[in-house]
């Protein structure tokens, strides 16, 4: 009775060896990339353990003593941490409110354009800011918006108004940060919507015309509902990334006068970890952010499954 079992296992292992022999060339291609992932992606993931250790460069990660959650207790007593967390969430929320609708409006307007060359040209110009690095955008912002020498304030002053401290007053700084975000992302963001717009059934427009609907009504009752699923998916994905914030944009645009509103988690981790070399604390802050980010992402996925019967990945 035990006889059938043996040939099966032997057969299976022989088959595995055979597939290894047959596909050795495929496996050989995978070797370097997999080593890459293990070292450069999983290495740092393992490195996160220093958040639970009293990390000492000379002892290394493994030999440093465990301290449990002590580091997190310390982090939760840091005012700077709460400030960075608040700013991250607040700037992301405002960014979502202001930057999210712009590509939708732009895409609907672009879609209404009938003159081909004008549409093509406008798209080319509108996509351009996406390819300019934040360093260059930051440099341009400083030149254009400087209170004394910037062109924008020169124009404002020539109109007889007071110069606006775009980059040096917290409230104005937030506005500037958001405005530059729109400038950089609105055009490029239209691409997905424009693709969704091509999928709308032409017959719907004709039927609406027969019923006497004008342009605006067609935009409102056909175009907008046509891209509604895309809008919802992108909105959910954006909410999922609420706790994450890039480094370049806040880092380049901020200055010592506005740290109170411009210091976000990423720049704070840089300040604590790299500039002050407090690796354990900075790693713990980064890990905390990753956990919060994961909660947001999983919630977004859950909502997406409820709304669309489809996860976000």
């Amino acid at each position: 009775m035990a006889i059938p079992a043996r040939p099966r296992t032997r057969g299976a292992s022989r088959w595995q060896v055979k597939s290894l022999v047959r596909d050795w060339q495929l496996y050989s291609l995978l070797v370097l990339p997999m080593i890459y992932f293990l070292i450069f992606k999983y290495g740092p993931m393992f490195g996160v353990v220093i958040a639970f250790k009293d990390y000492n460069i000379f002892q290394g990660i493994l030999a440093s003593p465990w301290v449990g959650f002590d580091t997190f207790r310390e982090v939760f007593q840091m005012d700077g941490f709460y400030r960075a967390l608040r700013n991250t969430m607040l700037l992301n929320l405002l960014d979502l409110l202001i930057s999210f609708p712009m590509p939708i409006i732009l895409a609907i307007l672009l879609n209404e354009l009938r003159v081909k060359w004008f549409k093509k040209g406008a798209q080319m110009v509108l996509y351009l800011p996406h390819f300019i690095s934040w360093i260059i955008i930051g440099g341009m912002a400083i030149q254009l918006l400087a209170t004394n020498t910037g062109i924008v304030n020169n124009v404002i002053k020539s109109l007889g108004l007071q110069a606006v401290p775009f980059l040096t007053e917290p409230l104005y700084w937030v506005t500037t940060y958001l405005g530059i975000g729109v400038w950089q992302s609105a055009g490029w963001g239209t691409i997905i919507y424009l693709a969704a717009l091509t999928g709308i059934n032409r017959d719907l427009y004709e039927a609406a015309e027969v019923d006497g609907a004008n342009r605006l009504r067609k935009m409102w009752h056909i175009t907008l509902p046509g891209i509604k699923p895309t809008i919802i998916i992108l909105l959910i994905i954006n909410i999922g990334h609420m706790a994450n914030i890039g480094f370049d944009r806040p880092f380049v645009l901020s200055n010592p006068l506005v740290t109170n509103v411009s210091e976000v988690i990423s720049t704070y981790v840089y300040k604590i970890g790299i500039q002050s070399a407090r690796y354990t604390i900075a790693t713990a802050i980064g890990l905390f952010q990753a956990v919060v980010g994961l909660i947001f992402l999983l919630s977004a996925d859950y909502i997406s499954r409820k709304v669309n019967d489809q996860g976000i990945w």
Partner: protein
Amino acid sequence: MANQENATSRPDGRNRTVDVVIIIVITAASLLCLMPMLHILALSMSGNSAIMAGKVTLLPIDIDFTAYRTVFGNMQMIRSLGFTILLVSIFTVISMTMTIMAAYPLTKRHLKGRDVFLFIIVITMFFSGGMIPEYLLVRNLHLLDSIWALILPGAINAFYLLIIKTFFTSIPVELEESARIDGASQYRVLFSVVLPLSLPVLATLSLFYAVGRWNGFMDALLYITNSNLYPLQLRLYEMVVNSQVNSMLEGLSSVAPVPESLKAASIMFATLPILLVYPWLQRYFVSGMMIGAVKG
């Protein structure tokens, strides 16, 4: 005839005002995108007195190329440009090679362990060690202050890998099978069948890797302290954002450009390569975005 065509494509042609309003709005948005760059361009080639008087808006006044001469004569800027070109070239070649090497085997459904490999890759799209563990890894590998610190950690983008894999999968499997029956090795199939059929997507993703590396800044800020190895973005940050632009003027005795035009010229210096290739390659960027969107 022409009228009829017009009538079908614009059934409610009587509502012209809407068209005009839309064209005005789009034109305004496009101008808003261009004007900052035009102003910087104007600043970079205007005369000192016009700049100081705040007269320069969108067109240069008293055209003067001293600022450009200073920037192009600055060894640090030139060295950063050369280093960045070298960096972007090596990075793009290595990244594309590694990405293709990973993507091709993973298109084979019969490959044992394929799901495990895919899982290992996809996980990295959602979890990362974060800034400090990555920094410590680079330091422990003794890569700080070397070009490899800017190449290896970001060599494979898991998202691009999945895009290429999706594209490879769309190639008719019969083509590969007939080559295999003719005795071609897997390597041979990849080189002679799969890659030639994938040139558009390979071009697009090379471009994505290259632009990402050209614009990349944070890793250089973290990993590079040797000023000889500053990529252009980091150099520009020092010059323009940190206002060390005056260091360029050291040793210049003749008529020196004002900081404004010097900064503007530095910005143009670093942007020009992107501006030069962008119009010709824009459709590749868009097509890449579309593949990504369909996949995501």
